[in-house]
């Protein structure tokens, strides 16, 4: 129990948020929405790390969250640059149209 709330509820909440992100990645075709759903999945994992860090009273979990934030920022910067490059070339960011490597 932490703050009168069992850790199981935090695990459940993180799992639900992660699944919402995963379903978004599978169900949408807009590349930017897919990126946002990946952010949502990363945040679900962050919430899990912080809750276990509080449970065990160990600051290392929170430091890990900082590193995940740094990596997420780098990922978003490069990913959005690639997306704007794709948009400049084919005037669309529909993932189904990005099949140049198929043939």
């Amino acid at each position, binding site marked *: 129990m*932490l*703050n*009168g*709330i*069992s*850790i*199981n509820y935090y*695990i*459940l*909440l993180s*799992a*639900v*948020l*992660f*699944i*919402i992100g*995963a*379903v*978004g990645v*599978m*169900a*949408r*075709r*807009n590349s*930017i*929405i897919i990126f*946002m*759903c990946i*952010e*949502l999945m990363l*945040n679900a994992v962050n*919430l899990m790390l*912080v809750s276990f*860090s*509080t*449970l*065990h*009273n*160990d*600051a*290392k979990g*929170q*430091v890990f969250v*900082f*590193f995940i*934030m*740094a990596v997420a*920022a*780098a*990922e*978003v*910067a*490069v990913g*959005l*640059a*690639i997306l*704007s*490059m794709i948009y400049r070339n084919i005037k669309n*960011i*529909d993932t189904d149209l990005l099949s140049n490597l198929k043939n």
Partner: protein
Amino acid sequence: MLGYTITQWLFGILSFLAIMFGLMVVFSRNPVNSVLYLVMTFFCIAGHYLLLNAQFLAIVHIVVYAGAIMVLFLFVIMLMNLNEDTEPQRTWLSKIIAAVAGGLMLFVMVGSLKGAGDMGLQQYGNAQIGFVKNLGAVLFKDFLFPFEIASVLLLAAMVGAIMIGKKEAGES
């Protein structure tokens, strides 16, 4: 109130809002609305961090995610002029398949949680690990090398983003 403490009420409300806004991110047709709902989800998660005694992390989360990353998303969406009319839609069959796959994944996760039982660890007295002083001590003592690597990663990402985004020499 109804046998629950104020912390439990806050947890319930924040969880409900986070899940609702997360669903709205996936279901809303306009990408700008998706971004705004994702910002609301991040605020709810920051509230969870405050409940978990991770105060500094809550502030950093709002500044980095809501303040920097989502503004970047918003800028790119406005540059591409995306709205409901240009939004590509998947067929109903693939949407249903995605929902079923997600439901099965949730079933596996919740099922494994059910077997775990309640973890009976108690929170110890010190509730100050989320303060800047303690986090800084851990970050610069135990994680100094990963910290430096993260700075190199951010530099590389910055250079990479500029190199990808810039126009080629012969391009119109």
